């Protein structure tokens, strides 16, 4: 079993990764302020990391933040209507890039899964939530170790 995430990453490093991603993807002048969070009723996207350290990198934003984020990333005019799939796509890509950059700081070699949106798996005890604020919206980046619970894969039952 790998070292707990708290000993591998600190808040400052996660914030630095997030700030770089924000500047490149959301906008050069977009500032991510460390602190605040957690987001109670947010929308989440996450990506899995598998290797010596296995777990998830989860991005959770408030509903208002996700709308503003999508508009900023896609450079949409305020009057343009937002499609739900665009909001999910932008969240997924942000989680994907955050996850890839966090992965590069962890022991390797490791692989990155495909990003997903929805309700992320509950974290266990190996978790590092990092709060930040963007344009006044709180958001959380959570790096959480894989839980011990076995993953259930549906199988066809064979009866004798």
């Amino acid at each position, binding site marked *: 079993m790998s070292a707990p995430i708290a000993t591998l990453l600190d808040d400052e490093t996660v914030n630095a990764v997030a700030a*770089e*991603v924000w*500047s*490149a*993807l959301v906008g050069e002048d977009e500032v991510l302020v460390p602190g605040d969070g957690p987001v109670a009723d947010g929308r989440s996207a996450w990506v899995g990391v598998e290797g010596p350290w296995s777990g998830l990198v989860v991005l959770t934003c408030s509903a208002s933040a996700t709308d503003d984020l999508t508009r900023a*990333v*896609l450079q949409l005019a305020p009057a343009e209507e937002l499609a739900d*799939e*665009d909001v999910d*796509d*932008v969240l*997924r*890509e942000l989680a*994907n*890039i955050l*996850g*890839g*950059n966090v*992965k*590069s700081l962890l022991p*390797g*070699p*490791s692989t*990155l*899964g*495909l990003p997903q949106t929805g309700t992320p798996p509950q974290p266990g005890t190996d978790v590092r939530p990092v709060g930040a604020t963007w344009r006044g919206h709180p958001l959380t980046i959570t790096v959480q170790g894989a839980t011990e619970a076995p993953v259930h894969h549906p199988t066809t039952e064979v009866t004798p």
Partner: protein
Amino acid sequence: MRALVIDDSRAMRRIVGSILEGFGYETRPAGHGREALDVLEEGWVPDLACIDWNMPVMDGLQFVSAVRANPAWRQVTLMMVTTESEHGQIVRALAAGAHEYVIKPFTADAIGDKLALLGLLPHGVPA
């Protein structure tokens, strides 16, 4: 010049496409490697393909191998644009036939620098 932008994220296809169009490219999007191969097979052979690594259906590495296996597509320059930043992954992609590697997040300048390095900046476009 033509570029195929292969990424499962619509946002990323839009961002990369818009950067390349700024450099004077005509672009076409594809959501995964298989869809990109379909574009090539229909005869739209680009000068450049920008390829994400982790995609459903057919990933970027499989796409690179498929393109390199077909002599008719030898002139296509393959540039990985991905979050995979481990040295071992970069070596795998280059060994499979990718020419360049850009790690997300990137800036338009970073893409321009790579295009200049590859000799793929249309004339008159500053890097």
